[in-house]
């Protein structure tokens, strides 16, 4: 694999795991615009443990996941007291706080950043991305996944049906923190360098866009969204700087034409092998593709 191709695969894997981190909360209806903050915690935890405490990657990565999961758990309590746009603002503020803190902390290298001692190759990233994807598909196919999606639609009815709404939301924020931390730790160990400026608000916006444009109804959404957003700018490289303009127009068009995201539950149901042949005993009710 050429350096260019392996670079894209690495970014794709990191973006995919990162997208799933945001997806697990978005699927339950919580928008997290502080993704970069959680990723930064994972990246800096791994960088510091690797460079200052001289630990190998197979120790730093689990510890980095633990650190960002813990932060996700703690932060979920104040954040879940807010709703809608206020939650978006609260998580955004959290992301800004983390990058501001790292930028001013001499322990973590401040604006200079940190060199990460232990290197991991693109193969490890691919394995992590595949495992994460399977994990999220598994989760979404479970009764917990059903509860997550029903919370997204109607919290009151979910509660009456016996779902512990608050517990599920806290669990998803914690899992989201863990996955964002994993993506950050992989970033740190693969690119061997972290700097606070990288984990900025634009990164948080991008990853939320991956998820919203991919679709929050099924685990396919972030997969399609991150493939689309990672590969499209590369394919458009021939257009020079104009590619960002085209990219922006594409995003606006997607929002207008398909606000529910590229992949919806109804689309997956229509493409599912179970529905390739109409059930003979049942009147074939249309499986519509309304959002």
């Amino acid at each position, binding site marked *: 694999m050429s350096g260019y191709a392996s670079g894209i695969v690495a970014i794709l894997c990191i973006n995919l795991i990162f997208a799933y981190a945001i997806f697990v909360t978005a699927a339950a209806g919580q928008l997290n615009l502080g993704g970069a903050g959680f990723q930064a915690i994972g990246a800096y935890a791994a960088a510091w443990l690797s460079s200052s405490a001289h630990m190998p990657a197979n120790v730093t990565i689990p510890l980095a996941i633990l650190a960002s999961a813990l932060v996700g758990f703690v932060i979920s309590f104040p954040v879940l007291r807010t709703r809608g746009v206020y939650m978006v603002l609260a998580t955004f503020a959290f992301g800004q706080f983390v990058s501001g803190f790292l930028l001013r902390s001499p322990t973590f290298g401040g604006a200079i950043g940190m060199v990460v001692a232990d290197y991991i190759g693109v193969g490890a990233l691919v394995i992590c991305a595949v495992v994460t994807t399977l994990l999220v598909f*598994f*989760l979404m*196919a*479970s*009764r*917990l996944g*059903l*509860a997550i*999606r*029903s919370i*997204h*639609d*109607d919290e*009151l*009815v*979910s*509660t*009456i*049906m*016996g*779902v*512990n*709404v608050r517990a599920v939301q806290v669990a998803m924020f914690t899992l989201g923190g863990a996955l964002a931390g994993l993506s950050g730790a992989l970033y740190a160990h693969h690119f061997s360098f972290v700097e606070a400026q990288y984990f900025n608000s634009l990164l948080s916006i991008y990853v939320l866009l991956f998820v919203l444009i991919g679709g929050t*109804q099924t685990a396919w959404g972030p997969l399609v969204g991150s493939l689309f957003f990672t590969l499209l700018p590369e394919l458009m490289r021939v257009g020079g700087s104009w590619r960002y303009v085209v990219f922006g127009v594409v995003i606006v068009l997607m929002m207008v034409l398909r606000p529910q995201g590229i992949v*919806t*539950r*109804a689309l997956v*149901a229509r493409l*599912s092998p*179970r*529905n390739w042949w109409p*059930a003979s005993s*049942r*009147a*074939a*009710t*249309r*499986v*519509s*593709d*309304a*959002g």
Partner: protein
Amino acid sequence: MPVEPILSLKQVTKRFGGLTVADQVSFDVPQGSRMALIGPNGAGKTTLFNLMSGVYPLDGGSIWLEGRQIDGLPSRQRIGAGLSRSFQNIRLMPHLSVIENVMLGQHAKASGLGDLMTPILWQRAGRWRQMAIERLEAAGIDVHPDAEVSSLPYGVRKKIEVVRALMSSPSLLMLDEPAAGLNPRETAELSAFLKDVAADGVTLLVVEHDMSFVHDLCERTVVLNFGRLIYNGATRSVQDDAAVREAYLGSRRVAGDGGDRAA
């Protein structure tokens, strides 16, 4: 031998600001009965349902289900205690398919992390999905399980909500205007279906404006007016009661007028 009440409301009181929407309401729902809860618009019927299912806390009184006080239980634990309900305006999950909406009704029956975390279709060869499909078929709902609920006719969605409420195997099923918006044929079908449900041992408590439906389905009726209980007795004599007549006619409304339904 007197039948033990499955549900007892004792002096249930609720105030919203200065307005008393439930004023020391007390009545029993006998085990295995089919009971109607009626009253003019704004009488507090839906509020009473919300108090029973724990949407709001009580300001006074107590609620007992099968001899157990439930008004202190969190809303999510009441379905496990045996109390299930539907909603006045259809509240199916719009982004869940028909079968997923019905399977959500089974949530309270799933036990432990194993049931929660394993893909639903892997659990004993898809028994959850199979149970949901059988219930839909028993209710005469002939739609594709993966269909989008928003694509279905109103009457079918209304029925799916009843089936969802039944999936938890409740001992008490509370239905908030199940016949509203249904045509006469659908109403008759629903009544027959609910009689079958009751015959399986489920006690019914039904808020309804359609009096012919109430007469057909429910042997007993309680009437609320301005948050107070004004009648508790046989359905056949409800229209002869002076207080009930005054409550309806005094406000120039007739039961079953199909008007606005802000209760």
